């Protein structure tokens, strides 16, 4: 496979009139467009009936969630504490975080289910406008687990109740930059072909914690 002429790339990107291409490039342009037309054929199936049947079976789960409702849900969600080990520079943070956790969950607080644990996500992203976590536990969907940096020190954190076991995840910074957790310690190939790695998190069930 050799690089194709930049003029052809420009024409395919709509940045150049394909009529201006030399004959050989124009043929390549036509060939690729013909291939694209083949791929545009829509599969003659529908999942609409199946999807609507499932929605009708359990219609009550979609609802608009305002900040107050989300806060109530967050406060009422069972949780325990698993503090992941961090390098030396986070010791002070960990101490502060521990204090916060004690304040939030006096008397041990509610606990997750037997096969669940709490994951603490912490990352240092100075200047970031937003940080969230996507992973195998939320189908890599954005918008479900946001980290917070309330004091603006560039250290973002969030907690989540997760099923016990192994989870892959990445941070999404400013809504567009996917980065592995530099402090995860364990990584696996992301299986997407670019040699990138997902961070690996192992959540221990609360019942297994001392």
């Amino acid at each position, binding site marked *: *496979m*050799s*690089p*194709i002429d930049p003029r*052809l*790339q420009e024409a*395919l*990107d709509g940045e150049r009139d394909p009529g201006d291409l030399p004959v050989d490039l124009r043929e*390549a342009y036509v*060939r*690729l467009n*013909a*291939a*694209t037309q*083949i*791929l*545009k*054929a*829509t*599969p*003659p*199936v*529908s*999942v*609409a009936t*199946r*999807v*609507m049947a*499932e*929605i*009708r079976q359990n*219609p009550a*789960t*979609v*609802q*608009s*969630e305002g900040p107050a409702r989300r806060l109530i849900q967050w406060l009422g969600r069972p949780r325990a504490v698993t503090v992941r080990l961090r390098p030396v520079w986070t010791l002070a943070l960990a101490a502060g975080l521990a204090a916060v956790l004690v304040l939030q969950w006096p008397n041990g607080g509610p606990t997750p289910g037997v096969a669940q644990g709490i994951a603490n996500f912490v990352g240092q992203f100075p200047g970031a406008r937003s940080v969230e976590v996507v992973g*195998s536990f939320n*189908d*890599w*969907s*954005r*918008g*479900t687990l946001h980290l917070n940096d309330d004091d603006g020190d560039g250290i973002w954190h969030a907690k989540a109740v997760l099923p016990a076991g192994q989870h892959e995840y990445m941070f*999404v910074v400013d809504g*567009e*930059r*996917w980065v592995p957790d530099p402090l995860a310690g364990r990584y696996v190939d992301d*299986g*997407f*072909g*670019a040699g990138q790695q997902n961070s690996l998190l192992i959540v221990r069930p609360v019942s297994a914690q001392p």
Partner: protein
Amino acid sequence: MVNDGAPADVDVVALVLGGDGEAFGILIRRYEPGLLRFATRMLGNPDAAADAVAESLVRAYRHLAQCRDPGRLRSWLYRITGNRCRSHLARRHTNDISLSDVPAPALADSSDTWAVLERGEQVALVERALAALPAEKREAFVLKHVEGMSYEEMATVTGARIPTLKMRVHRAREALLAALEEVVR
């Protein structure tokens, strides 16, 4: 997306969030063809693609309140579907479509046997060339050229940066063109 005379996505989303679950059918009808096409090209298997799209749409319904910008609902739905395809590929422990998954081409015109054979060969060739691409290049090519997205929208769907996406599309074009020219020679 707004069709002639049809309610805008934001209005339909508002209806659904207001309790009219049946209105979600409007969104299904609007986006199902593209999502099925996208998933089929990503997974190379119509059954797996249908499962992925169905699961994605149900998930979208359940989490509709978390769609921060209903005006960009299409991107959101493609992102969910792309994630589902990604999970499916990861479960298979491979990035690539098995060529055996690429179905025999559906022939559209049976009036001329020779023409049908030629068309069928073209379809099989293109589908196999696409299936041979790494998943990320396949995704970029399909979103750009099959689904007709801008690089900006592709960035929203995939989470990748625009220069990265341009590079993936360019590499995909090179690979596809090489595969096509090999047969023409």
